[in-house]
């Protein structure tokens, strides 16, 4: 009889229950989120990427601390005539050029081109000009962190706004259908037919002259809100369209019909039935959209339609460095590497997140 009982145990229920028996009997069910988290936890690469992203965010958030305590200069402070001690030797921040008399031989020597900024000191100057200086003698490391601060604010902020707008539109269109769906779909069509970068640049450039002052919205011309709003607006269709498609297919599911049959209100069905089911997609989208928006911000700022100088961002830094690439390549390399690192980290994490939330994808990869 004992063996029979065990045999029954074996035939019981689902796989996850079997797994649960291995550890302990779980009365509290394991939510899909928990299962996804467990899968994600095994993906060390994705977690490493997330850690890298958080490190970048933390570093950029601590930009003022770095500026004050280590570099001892602000992001927009010029040091054109300053001299720093590198390994105990005095070095001009910007080369003076001209000639000088060698104190030992008494010969007249050429100093090289004037105005070439100091290169990376790699901590040999006590934290000053770690990544060198730009042509105004500003500390590149400090500007890189402050720039990253701005780029991340815009990237994350616009991703948040964009996803939120897309989600609301997609929910309304997908749930109500009919004329509302028609209107929202047409809006998406038009937005998708716009040459995106062109539209973003046009908006960004136009708004950056005098800001935007209409009704309750009051934006100064240098405000970070301008690129944030512009980017989230022009990309809304790219998130909204796939989300709408998902909601349309969820809408056909029987559990939604069951909710209707119970007399659930549209709001309840949208927020309690539909939303939890697209939350995982939204999360993945959100991660990937941050990455995308950081790139778009960089492009806008590079073309002068994003963050306005002297306020730094990774895009403006590259734009400033571009002209000096022959004499001071570090001006271009630093922010570029920062962008690539951040975006790669987000993309890798986004991929891992998708695999964890949609296990089918995982199996496909193992094929």
């Amino acid at each position, binding site marked *: 009889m004992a063996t029979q009982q065990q045999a029954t145990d074996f035939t019981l229920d689902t796989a996850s229950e079997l797994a649960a028996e291995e550890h302990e009997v779980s009365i509290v069910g394991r939510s899909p989120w928990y299962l996804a988290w467990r899968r994600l936890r095994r993906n060390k690469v994705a977690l490493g990427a997330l850690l890298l992203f958080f490190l970048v965010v933390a570093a950029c958030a601590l930009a003022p601390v770095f500026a004050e305590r280590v570099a001892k200069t602000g992001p927009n402070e010029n040091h054109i005539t300053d001299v720093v001690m590198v390994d105990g030797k005095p070095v001009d921040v910007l080369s003076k050029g001209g000639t000088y008399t060698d104190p030992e031989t008494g010969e007249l020597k050429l100093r090289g081109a004037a105005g070439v900024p100091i290169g990376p000191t790699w901590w040999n100057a006590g934290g000053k000009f770690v990544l060198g200086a730009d042509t105004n003698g500003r500390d590149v490391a400090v500007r890189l962190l402050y720039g990253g601060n701005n780029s991340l604010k815009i990237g994350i902020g616009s991703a948040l706004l964009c996803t939120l707008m897309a989600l609301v539109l997609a929910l309304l269109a997908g749930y109500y259908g009919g004329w509302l769906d028609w209107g929202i779909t047409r809006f998406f069509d038009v937005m998708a037919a*716009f*040459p*995106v*970068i062109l539209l973003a640049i046009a908006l960004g450039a136009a*708004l950056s002259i005098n800001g*935007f002052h209409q009704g309750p919205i009051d934006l100064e011309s240098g405000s970070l809100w301008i690129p944030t709003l512009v980017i989230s607006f022009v990309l809304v269709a790219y998130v909204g369209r796939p989300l709408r498609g998902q909601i349309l297919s969820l809408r056909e599911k029987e559990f939604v019909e069951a909710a209707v049959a119970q007399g659930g209100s549209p709001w309840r069905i949208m927020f309690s039935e539909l939303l939890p089911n697209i939350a995982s997609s939204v999360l993945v989208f959100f991660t990937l959209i941050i990455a995308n928006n950081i790139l778009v911000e*960089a492009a806008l700022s590079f073309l002068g339609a994003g963050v306005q100088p002297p306020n730094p961002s990774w895009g403006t830094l590259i734009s400033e460095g571009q002209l000096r690439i022959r004499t001071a390549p570090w001006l271009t390399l630093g922010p*570029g590497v920062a962008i690539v690192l951040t975006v790669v980290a987000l*993309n890798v994490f986004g991929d891992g997140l998708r695999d964890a939330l949609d296990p089918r994808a995982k199996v496909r990869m193992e094929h």
Partner: protein
Amino acid sequence: MGAFLARRLIGMFFVLLVITFVTFAIFIVVPGGDPATRMAGKNPSEQGIQNIRETWGFDEPFYTQYGKMMEKTFNAMRPGFDDPNNELISYSRRENVVDQIKQRLPATFSLAIGAAIIWLAFGVAVGMISAVRAGRLSDRMITILALIGISMPVFWLGIIARYYLGPENAGIFPDGDYVPLTQDPIGWFYHLLLPWMVLAVLFIGFYGRVLRSNILDTINEDYVRTARAKGLGPRRVLSKHVLRNSLIPIVTLFGLDFAGVIGGGAILTETVFEIDGVGQYAARSIRTLDLPPIMGVTILGAFFIVLFNVIVDLVYAYLDPRIRPT
């Protein structure tokens, strides 16, 4: 078929109408857009500004202005039309916008078509190789490279590549610039090769990833099992049954991306490599908030995007018999 095309063409017209209107509205609603003040130059007299307003029609209601601008745009596109007063003229340089765009089209098309060939060929190759070798080391390496490819800002890659591979360092490629095809085909190719590759990198990574997952999806389909059960060789199964179905979504992507590149997507590459194409023209006009050229380029871009939408639908219907209109 006819009804389908008719509906799409009507839709196209309306989309273009809305897009031009929105573009126009941006410059009317947004302050600082008043062109008369800027056109009057430094220290303008109030009277001078007023005069400019009157001659250019800036004092009229915005719908009249919009209508006139549209009319001028279409006038200028009509062949043989030659009436300087009724053509789309830029505010800052007083040039005929349509002519300016026409001059720059060959450069933009050269850039876009060349890059498209490269990204399509390499993207498909990358996707196939990594799907066939899924899970192995080579797949992982390709996946990482593809990820880095889609994570790089194209303009930064352009600057770096132009400097380090250009005459001052590696000396493999020339330093930017555009040589017309008619003038010197070899120089054309030589000068465009680097911009093509830089522009293609992003798409290669993207297509490779999409195709890889498409192929891995398709491999699990029942009809692929059927094909194997028929006794077909693995090569034939892959080429005829898997690839054909996996490539269908790529066609959509390709059409839309190609249109996007022509319609302003190449703006960064053109700027970085100093190729005097439509994108650079737009970038320059935006810096001076010169509405007519922006309008012209936007219409061009939107037109290509909408047009390719229709083409993609037709090609899609050809490739996938399930959605052929009956």
